[in-house]
Structures are given as structure tokens and as C-alpha cells.
């Protein structure tokens, strides 16, 4: 038997091995995609109802005597008038046979708790409405929305149903009269947190995340890039620098909650900076993202071919000029990619922020880095923990918003890499 025969004999076995390996690889990818699809369909399926808003159209009589105000009243008086009564009377007008106290309470709970503030703001904006009868679309309560959206099954026996027969009857009458309508839920993107699912919005959390990341970026990017340049281009090769290198790599693996504890001890307790503020959150997260950016920047700088440096130095550029005019621009796509990935990591982080008081109920939209605020992943956590059923869809919707920002950030990273990448 010569060598060719030996090879031929083993050939079949080798091909088989390759085929098995390829199939295994394919199956792994297919499984991963399957899990991702299950996750996404589950989240999107649950989130979709959150983007529609259920309203009840009511005719309200804004009589000047009833409210005790007129178009010339001061804004304070207009603000403090009893709008709840007006809405209640409109509801009673539709169902005049409701007389018992308990039943009335049920009836009044058809509209959201926010309806009176909605009416108040409408009147403040349009004082000419006073003394007239207006048809206004009021926000419906989350239970009504649940019935209309089909989250509460109308066919269940009454004892097992959250919305009892009487209330269901009212809702069905309103539906038959065409007084219930659904619109796109703009409020979800324009308001802060609320304890009523129908009024809760994500804007506060989005802005909180924005301010936090702004501080993180402003702190970590310059420091990390400067550190990487120094370590790669200027630092002498000695034991001390090796020691720093090891520590940076270790720091990248430290659990993030540790940074939270550090933030609590140093920034809040020692420097007495405000609790729950994006500025503290940003500093803590920048501690966390620093090693990520330093490591990415260093490898980007290392990948710039030495010939480039030598050419610059040979033409008489100083070391500083070489680095800033030639090496850094060439390394920038890698540095930016690393930075964006670090920022995306920071965007999804909750653990360190738990320690510095960002797990809080905050309704007002933050205006600056020192206003109390929360961030997107924490908003998800808070809503997931709420007893009201309506928050289930809000939770999924908030996850979708968070995923959208993560995907967008990663897409930018890929785009930058593709656009500025150079082949040496």
C-alpha cells in the first residue's frame, strides 16, 4: 500500500468529521437564533398594546357657576377649580340610574385619575371654553383599557373577572355609542413615570439615561484615550507599567455593583453629592466603562502599523505630532467602536445605580444632570414589580425602547468601523 492509498482510505473519514463539525456549528447558530426569536416575539407581542391608548369621549358642561370661575379668573383659581365633579356629572348623565354610593364610585373609575388634570390643562389653555359644553376625549382607566384591548377576557365568569358585570355593561354601552376610541399612545413618549398604567411614560427614563451617559462619555472618553495613548506610545517598558496593565485588565472584570458601593461611599457620603442624580450615576458608570475603552483603544493603537510612525518620525515630526497627526486618526475607528460598545454596556447597567438611589419613583422629567432621575433598565425593573396588570405591557414596551437604543448604538459602531476602517 503506498501513501496515496493511505490518504484515500482516510479521506472518507476526514470528510465525515468535517461534515459533523459543520452541522454542529449550524445547529448552534440555529438554536441561538431560535431563542432570540422567541424572546423578541414574546416581548414585542406583549408590548404592542402599550402603544395604543384607550379614550372615553365625554360631553362636559363647563358651567362657570359650577366651577366658580370665569375667563377672567386668575390662573391659580382656574387651577384649583373642581374639575373632577364636572367629569363625574358627565358620567352620571350617561347612566342616570346609578344612585348607590358604591356603584357611583365604580362608575367614576371609568375615566383615569388623570382625566381631571387633563380637563384642567385644557381649560387653562382655552379659557374661552368656560360656559360652554365641550366634547373631550378623556383617558380611560387601565381596567377599561384592559377590556377594550382584550387583556381582560369578557367571557370569564363574573367571579373570576376583574371588571364586574355592571362595569362591563357600562363599557359595552359606551362602545355601542361609539364613545370609546383608541389612538396612538403619544403620552408614552412624552410623560414621566406614573402609578397609573394608562398615564405612565418613558420620557423621564430616556432623558435620565441620556444625562447619565452624557456624563459617562464626557468623563471616560478623554481619560481612557489619554491613558491608552500614554501606555502604548510614551510609557517606558518597566514593572510599574506592567502592574498598571494587569490592574486595568482586572478592573474590566470587577462586578459592577462594586462600583456602585464605591460611588455611594465616595461621591455621596464623602463629597455629599445629590442622591439619585445622573451626575453621580454617570461618574460611577464611567469608572465601569473606563477599562473597556482603554483596552479597546490600546489594541486599536497597537494595530496601526509601525511603518506609519517611522515615516512620520523620519520626516522630522516630533513624537507628539506623530501620535496626534497620524496614529490617532488611524486608530480612531477602533477607539470609537470600543467607546460605543462601552456606552451600550453602561446604558443597560442597573446594579451600580441601585446603590446610589436611582431606583426611585420620579414623575418630573429631569432637566439637568443634577435633577433626580432614573434610567431605562431601572424603569423596566420598577414597572415589572408593580401590582397593576396594565404595567405588564408597559414593561415590555420599555424593554423594546431599551433594545432599540442598544441596537442603534451598535449599528453606529458598525457603521463607523466600516466607513473609516483602513486595510494596511
Amino acid at each position, binding site marked *: 500500500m503506498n501513501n496515496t492509498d493511505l490518504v484515500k482510505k482516510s479521506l472518507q473519514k476526514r470528510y465525515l468529521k468535517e461534515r459533523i463539525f459543520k452541522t454542529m456549528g449550524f445547529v448552534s447558530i440555529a438554536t441561538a437564533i431560535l431563542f432570540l426569536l422567541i424572546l423578541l416575539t414574546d416581548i414585542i407581542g406583549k408590548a404592542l398594546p402599550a402603544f395604543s391608548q384607550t379614550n372615553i369621549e365625554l360631553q362636559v358642561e363647563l358651567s362657570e357657576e359650577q366651577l366658580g370661575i370665569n375667563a377672567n379668573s386668575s390662573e391659580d383659581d382656574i387651577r384649583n377649580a373642581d374639575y373632577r365633579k364636572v367629569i363625574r356629572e358627565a358620567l352620571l348623565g350617561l347612566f342616570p340610574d346609578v344612585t348607590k354610593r358604591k356603584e357611583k364610585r365604580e362608575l367614576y373609575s371609568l375615566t383615569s385619575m388623570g382625566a381631571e388634570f387633563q380637563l384642567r390643562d385644557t381649560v387653562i389653555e382655552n379659557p374661552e371654553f368656560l360656559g360652554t359644553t365641550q366634547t373631550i376625549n378623556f383617558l380611560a382607566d387601565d381596567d377599561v383599557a384592559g377590556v377594550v384591548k382584550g387583556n381582560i377576557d369578557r367571557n370569564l365568569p363574573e367571579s373570576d373577572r376583574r371588571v364586574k358585570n355592571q362595569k362591563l355593561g357600562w363599557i359595552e354601552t359606551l362602545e355601542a355609542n361609539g364613545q370609546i376610541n383608541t389612538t396612538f399612545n403619544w403620552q408614552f413618549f412624552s410623560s414621566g413615570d406614573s402609578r397609573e398604567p394608562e398615564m405612565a411614560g418613558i420620557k423621564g427614563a430616556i432623558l435620565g439615561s441620556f444625562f447619565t451617559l452624557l456624563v459617562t462619555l464626557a468623563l471616560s472618553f478623554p481619560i481612557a484615550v489619554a491613558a491608552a495613548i500614554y501606555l502604548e506610545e510614551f510609557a517606558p517598558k518597566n514593572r510599574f507599567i506592567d502592574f498598571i496593565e494587569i490592574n486595568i485588565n482586572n478592573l474590566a472584570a470587577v462586578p459592577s455593583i462594586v462600583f456602585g458601593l464605591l460611588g455611594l461611599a465616595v461621591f455621596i457620603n464623602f463629597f455629599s453629592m445629590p442622591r439619585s442624580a445622573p451626575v453621580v450615576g454617570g461618574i460611577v458608570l464611567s469608572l465601569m466603562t473606563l477599562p473597556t475603552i482603554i483596552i479597546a483603544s490600546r489594541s486599536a493603537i497597537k494595530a496601526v502599523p509601525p511603518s506609519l510612525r517611522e515615516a512620520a518620525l523620519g520626516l522630522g515630526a516630533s513624537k507628539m505630532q506623530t501620535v496626534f497627526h497620524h496614529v490617532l486618526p488611524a486608530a480612531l475607528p477602533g477607539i470609537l467602536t470600543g467607546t460605543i460598545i462601552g456606552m451600550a454596556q453602561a446604558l443597560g447597567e442597573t446594579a451600580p445605580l441601585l446603590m446610589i438611589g436611582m431606583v426611585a419613583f420620579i414623575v*418630573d422629567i429631569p432637566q439637568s444632570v443634577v435633577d433626580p432621575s432614573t434610567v431605562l433598565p431601572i424603569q423596566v425593573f420598577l414597572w415589572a414589580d408593580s401590582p397593576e396588570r396594565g404595567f405588564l405591557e408597559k414593561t415590555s414596551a420599555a424593554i423594546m425602547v431599551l433594545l432599540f437604543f442598544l441596537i442603534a448604538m451598535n449599528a453606529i459602531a458598525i457603521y463607523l468601523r466600516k466607513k473609516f476602517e483602513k486595510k494596511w
Partner: protein
Amino acid sequence: MKRLKKISLVASLIAASQIQAAGRDYISVVGSSTVYPFSTVVAERFGKSTTFKTPKIESTGTGGGMKLFCKGNGVDTADITNASRRIKESELKMCHDNGVNEVVEVLIGYDGIVVANDINSHEFKLTRKDLFLALAKEIPTEKEGELVANPHTMWNEVNAELPAVKIEVLGPPPTSGTRDAFVELAMEGGCKKFPWIKETKSADKSKYKSICHTIREDGAYIEAGENDNLIIQKLQKNPDALGIFGFSFLDQNSDLVKGSTVDGAEPEFETIASGEYPVSRPLFFYVKKAHVSEIPGMKEFLNEFTSEKAMGEEGYLTDKGLIPLDADKYMKVKENVMNLKNLEL
């Protein structure tokens, strides 16, 4: 360029801490995650109906809240802390040691802890003794003074009238206030039914506590995290399991789960309010008196929280599952708040 950036950053950081030192224009609340759902509702209404800023409410747990609250009198400390139990003497002492001399206690109402299972599953008519015998790590035998590792695996072994279902209970972890309250009210309540154990209380308090308060660790009690919604989802997947959580979650999910009776009382609004349902606890918040005049809106917030339309028998907090105080207690609380009566234990 870079230097400029850094200088401006440092400057803004210093400015940030300065702003904090100068004062705060919103109320800061910390404390129990059980009171959080009620406190937030009041805060939101307060923010929407007045020109004051909406108070900030952190959910830190009762113990954590006390620490933040008692840290000092400066404006960088919390104004109010929520608690799902009464303040301990040691905590009040910590407050006093740090200069927080005047604290006002406000009792807001009650919260029930329910044992529930899937709506289509078996009916459980439990007693506190059943709960103790099913969930304690060690239980007493026929012989007085003897304890054995809990041998029960089925509910009908605990009590012949209960269904023949495996004991499987999903409940909160030891860090939770709900767990503390469940152990204290349900388990200890059942444990005390054994006369000799009751007698140990005066003789050897730590032994008494270790008998009554220790939950078994052999898998019959499953720690399901602090998220009560998760427990409810798991109950639907596993009809044989029971879950332990706050009454407001039962109230909101009455189409998915049903509460077991405890000592013959249904877990309902009325029975918890009357005290007939045995597993219920009081909820409080504590106010730093020194901050009432210092932080804008404090007086108005206290008024809103203790108003009839919030805390009263038909107030909006009852819609969120709070069990209100009876009229006498309510009047007393209201009076204490009006006079800002200093708490003395």
C-alpha cells in the same frame, strides 16, 4: 482643548455639589417597598394638583430607609421614611444620636399577606398551625420538648382535611419585609399553639425564635425573589404550588389566583380591616420634624397623605389595596400629624 474640557467638568461637578448644599425644592422619601406603591400614588397626585415638585420616592427597604433617614438633619438626608413595621428602639436611638431628635410617626393603614394558588386549583382552608407545621424547619413531636426535622411532604399529612398535594410554597427571600411579617404573624402564630413552645418564650427567647421563625430549607419552601408578579406567573404554571405575597397583588390578579382562608377568614378587604384575617401588619411612615419648615411642600404633602380622600375609608389608597384605619385611629393619626407630635417609644 482637553484641559479646557476637564476644567469645565470639574467646575460643573463642584457646582453640582453646591446646588445640593444650597437646598432642595422637592421632598425626598425613602424606605419600605411595601409602602412604596401607596406613597407613590400620593406623591403623584400631590405633584399634579399643586405647584410643588413631585416628591422623589426611593424603594430601599424598611431597614435601609431607617439608616438613610437617621443619618442626620442636613437637607441632603431624606425627609420621610416608609416602614412596613414600627421603628425599633435601636433605630430611634440611632436617629437621636445623629441629631434627629424629633420624629413624627404616621400610621397609614394595614396590609394583608396572603397564601394563594391558581384559580382553578384546590381550595385550601389553612390555619396558622398548618402553615407552621408545613413550613418550619423543625416541628414538635407528640412528646413534649422534642423536635424533629420536618417530615411532611404532603399537605394532607399536615392536616387530614387538606388536599393530598405536595407541599410546595413560593415565597419571598429573607431580605424581604413580607417574609419577616409572614414568619412573625403566620408561622409564630401557629407555633404558639403548642403550649410547651409558648412557655419557652419567657425561658429561652432565642430558642423560641429559632423554633418558630426558621423556615425549612429542603426545597418545600422556594425562595422566589422579591418580585410578586413572578410568583403569580409561576403559580399559573404549577397549579399545585402555593404562593405568599401582599394583598394588593391578590386584589389586582383575582382572575388568576385565589387566596386561601387562614383560620377560617377569607383574605378580603373587610376581614383584613376588621382584624379577623390574622396575617396582616401595620404600615407607617416617619417624618423628620426639622424638615417640615425647611423643605417646600412638606406640610401640604402630609395633609394630602392623611386626608380623608387618600387614607380614609373610601380614599384612593384603598383602590390600590391599602386596608384603611378605623375612624377612631384615623382621627388620632390626623391629630398627631396636625400637631406634629414627637414620637417617644
